[in-house]
């Protein structure tokens, strides 16, 4: 049983703000790299399978299966292959991000009205050109929403990554656990948890801006 002490927490933050900030930075970095990888892979897979029923359900189903696997199990199962550290966290987060991104890419590409694609074809565009110059830009807001969902998901999962030696605020949470009983235990765990929540909310806000500025000009409301 540990009581809460606000002045103690503030003193803790004042003393360790360097650590806290660098952990926040690491947390952001690992999530950002994982999202970048997952976006490249997920959108690529989506572009390949959106028009193939078998490939489509195969891609979405396997990504859904990955998301069902408990995060501690997936992260730990990669240790024999990749050892401790950033690598298992990075791969795990990338795998978990795939489902929302692939699914939204497929949905976005399929939602483009056939009339628009027909007119693009009538203008002499080949199917790959229609896909990349017409469908992809029109599907982009939906795809970014998928990345946004993946970001919310991975910011939380990254906290568990600290157990397999991964970077980020999870380290503070686990430090709180391992110092259970000492007076700083609550400060560690609270700082880590609050940090993750704040990070998730800020990143969610960032995505509103990202969506606005990466959407093709003609589509902006």
């Amino acid at each position: 049983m540990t009581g809460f002490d606000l002045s103690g927490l503030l003193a803790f933050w004042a003393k360790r703000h360097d650590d806290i900030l660098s952990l926040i930075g690491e947390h952001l970095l690992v999530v950002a790299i994982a999202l970048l990888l997952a976006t490249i892979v997920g959108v690529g897979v989506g572009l390949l399978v959106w028009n193939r029923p078998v490939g489509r359900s195969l891609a979405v189903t396997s990504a859904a299966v990955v998301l069902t696997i408990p995060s501690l199990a997936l992260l730990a199962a990669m240790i024999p292959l990749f050892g401790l550290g950033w690598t298992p966290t990075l791969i795990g987060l990338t795998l978990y991000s795939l489902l929302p991104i692939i699914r939204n890419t497929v949905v976005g590409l399929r939602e483009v009205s056939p009339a628009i694609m027909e007119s693009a074809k009538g203008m002499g565009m080949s199917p790959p050109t229609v896909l990349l110059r017409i469908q992809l830009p029109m599907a982009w807001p939906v795809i970014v929403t998928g990345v946004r969902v993946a970001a919310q998901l991975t910011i939380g999962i990254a906290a568990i990554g600290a157990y397999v030696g991964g970077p980020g605020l999870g380290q503070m949470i686990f430090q709180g656990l391992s110092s259970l009983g000492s007076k700083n235990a609550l400060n560690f765990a609270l700082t880590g948890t609050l940090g993750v929540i704040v990070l998730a909310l800020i990143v969610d806000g960032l995505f509103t801006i990202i969506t606005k500025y990466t959407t093709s000009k003609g589509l902006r409301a």
Partner: protein
Amino acid sequence: MTLAVVLESDTTAALVDPQARRARFWSPRRVATPIVVAVVLLALYLWVANMTLDSIMQRTLNWDYILLRTREHLVLTFVASALVAVLAIPAGIVASRTRSRVLRGAILTIANIGQATPAIGFIILLAIIWQIGFQTALIALVAYSFLPVLRNTMVGLSQIDAHVTESARGMGMTPNQVLLRIELPLAVPVILAGLRTSLVFCVGVATVATFINAGGLGDMIVNGLKLQRFPVLIAGAVIVSCIALLIDWLASIAEDVLRPKGV
């Protein structure tokens, strides 16, 4: 009778003929999941059975230990999910009945923040301020799944076409009859989807319950890692993943079976 027609013409599902519905019920994924899980578990068994185990591995890679941990894991998952169903669905109904927009907005905001909270942080915080052990893990699981299920219940009830409830009232139904006979059946798919998510989620969070001494299959993963016995780690990770897949599979069947016929 008239009402049933009104409802059915509102939903595209009514246009699907019984045969197509049966085909959708036995989708490839529905058929493949138990087969894949069985094959994976068999492969795991053969791999472990053909391995010479040292004394440390023998202590965990035996039926008694594995069944005990699996039981702990399942008890934690199902008790938490049942509590969530009993508590969060009525709370969601009450919350959606309220006239106060402020209260409803507040609940949805809290639910969103709750979703941003990392499960591991929440469960460890609870262990620090209260105690370690099974009860703490159970409370953390319930508190954590409560908001998503409550929100799904609210969303499920609020997305019902106003024309439908209006015609029900026009037929002379009391508000309670509208709720029980029209709104709840129509919201069932969304509510069940919320419960399914929370069930799978509970399997995952029950894995990290090992950190606060609440048992479960996470014990195998953590022991395997601490003692550098990777077969133990892999066995724990594979078994818990198979449980998650099977529970998701069962929940998807329950979703189809429990969904009201017209919807």
